[in-house]
């Protein structure tokens, strides 16, 4: 788990290496499509892939309503949230040069959820569109704090993670204190504080989209300058990059991605940590490959966890936040053990 300087394409047969990576990306896209079909198919009534296809396009099909009113919004939301959290984790890791930077572990998602709890209890906000501004503000504050703590060279991964854990604990205790003052909001927000896709509808997806798209664009655009920045500020400047501008862009992107994802479905941990780690062996540290891979595979994990939660928890469901914590946690422990 160390960040090394980007190796760039190997001098020998560079074309072949990137064609392998391109092929891998196609495989990942196929996996994403498969999980999306599963996510639309699973539920109280199982739909076969054929029915899913018909339900998507043919208004006369009997599955059209199930697909469009319930399962498609949920799948789209999972897609966006997974992509956002994965990407946010990957660029945070690159910016802080810290392999453990994850928006969940570092408290960014908890910051957004503390702000949402405040909005719900003290200001009576109850819609996504109201939540999202608070969530963005909370995420921005914590991102800036985390960066202030972890951006320097002195912070080791363990220390940054510990600072994040302490922030998480503070914010979590704040959320429960706020919820305790109002029994109704405990009931309203308890699913949300776990991280759940269950309340998805098209309105939420539509409102999430602009924030998500802006964050995605910013996140993908910083790939190349962040690569330069990983050589150090001086080298990056010599290559024509502007370090402070890049940092601001990354913080804006992380805020947009994490804030909107958390406003939509609550704090979810480990997605942003695990996927970049799992794809790095294939892509190397070059962000121009790492980020697209992460963006495709992170929603595979999130949607997969959501499907698993629906299968394991039936007739009800396990919240996706629980599944990612219980599945992702051991993977995280494995990564920690595997590193020396």
């Amino acid at each position: 788990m160390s960040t090394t300087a980007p190796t760039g394409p190997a001098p020998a047969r560079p074309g072949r290496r990137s064609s392998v990576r391109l092929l891998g990306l196609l495989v990942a896209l196929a996996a994403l499509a498969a999980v999306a079909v599963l996510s639309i198919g699973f539920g109280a009534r199982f739909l076969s892939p054929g029915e899913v296809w018909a339900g998507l396009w043919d208004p006369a099909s009997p599955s059209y309503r199930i697909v469009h009113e319930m399962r498609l919004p949920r799948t789209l939301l999972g897609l966006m949230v997974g992509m956002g959290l994965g990407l946010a984790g990957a660029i945070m890791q690159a910016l802080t040069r810290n392999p453990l930077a994850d928006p969940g572990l570092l408290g960014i998602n908890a910051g957004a959820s503390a702000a949402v709890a405040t909005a719900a209890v003290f200001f009576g906000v109850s819609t996504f569109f109201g939540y999202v501004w608070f969530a963005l503000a909370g995420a921005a504050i914590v991102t800036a704090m985390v960066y202030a703590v972890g951006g320097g060279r002195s912070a080791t991964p363990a220390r940054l993670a510990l600072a994040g854990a302490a922030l998480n604990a503070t914010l979590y205790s704040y959320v429960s204190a706020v919820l305790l003052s109002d029994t109704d909001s405990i009931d309203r927000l308890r699913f949300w504080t776990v991280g759940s896709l269950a309340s998805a509808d098209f309105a939420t997806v539509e409102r999430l989209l602009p924030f998500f798209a802006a964050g995605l664009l910013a996140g993908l655009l910083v790939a190349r300058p962040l690569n330069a920045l990983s050589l150090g500020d001086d080298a990056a400047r010599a290559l024509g990059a502007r370090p402070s501008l890049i940092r601001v862009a990354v913080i804006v992107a992380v805020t947009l991605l994490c804030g909107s994802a958390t406003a939509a479905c609550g704090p979810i941990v480990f997605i942003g940590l695990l996927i970049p780690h799992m794809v790095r062996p294939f892509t190397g540290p070059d962000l121009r490959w790492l980020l697209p891979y992460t963006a495709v595979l992170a929603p595979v994990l999130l949607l997969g966890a959501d499907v698993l939660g629906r299968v394991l928890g039936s007739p009800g469901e396990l919240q996706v936040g629980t599944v990612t914590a219980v599945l992702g946690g051991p993977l995280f422990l494995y990564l920690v053990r595997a590193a020396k």
Partner: protein
Amino acid sequence: MTLATLDKTRSIGSRVGVRPRAVAVGALALIGTFVVSVFGLGTGDFEIAPVDVVTTLFGEGNPAHEFIIGELRLPRLITAILVGAAMAASGAVFQSLVRNPLGSPDMLGVTNGASTAALAVVILGGTSTQLSIAAVAGGLAATLLVRLIAGRALHGFRFILVGIGMAAILTGISGYLLTRGVQMENARALLWLTGNLDGRDWGQAVPMALVLAVVLPFLLLACGPGLRILEMGDDSASALGVPVSLLRNGALLAAALLISFAAASAGPVLFVALIAPHLAKRMSRAPGPNLLPSIAVGALLLTGADFLAQHALDDQTLPVGVVTGLLGGGYLVWLLTTERRAGRI
């Protein structure tokens, strides 16, 4: 000859030895605890003057005061003192073992183990005795798991990371448990999870006192000096004759016992285990875990926080965990900025 004896006396002196600053910190914190206690015992629906509180405590008060203080207010106060002391001692040992001021049992999954197990009991509708047993068992089990998964290197970042991972997993599980209960149970569960001292009686204070009576002497006499040497590094410590792994495991077990029982008595009150040892260390400027000053500061912190929780708002009482959570948040921000500047975090 002189040099050798001088060396020897100095090392013995610093081992048993009295550090004036540390003693002063401990004494001040104890006096503070006493003052807060007297005011805490006197304040409430029925006000009792501080002088009367003190005379009642020494057994000279009138029967009405004796009933109000002895039966109603004292059990809660004693629970707060004992729980604060236990949490602080546990935090001091953990911080010394992982060599990081943020490495308290709250952050490393131990408290989460206790609260997840307790939450399961609340959701299943268990009694409060079952809840306490589950909390102790959960805390110990989480410690054991973290220890086993982390492997040998307890001080290294691996133990911290495994602890954080465990805490995140357990947080996910408790979130799931919270979604299973019905509304009233959830309010009760959330109240317990925040940590509070409402309605604590001798039933909570006595087990805590027993555990402290057994574990504290063990920590102070058997572990304290060794832990101080261990902070210089494993190699130096074993060269100086400290049985490193035995000491570590013993201290870890003792600290886990303390924090688990504390969580069983008062709920997982956050940040006392993190702040008290760190404050004590800053003030006493002594190396090592600073057990005695930490314990005194912990007792002061929790009684002070509970006093605030009961009397800060006119119309309602807060769970003490809310007060420590808010205090802890502020302290954390300060800690992160100062310690980072000093390069220790």
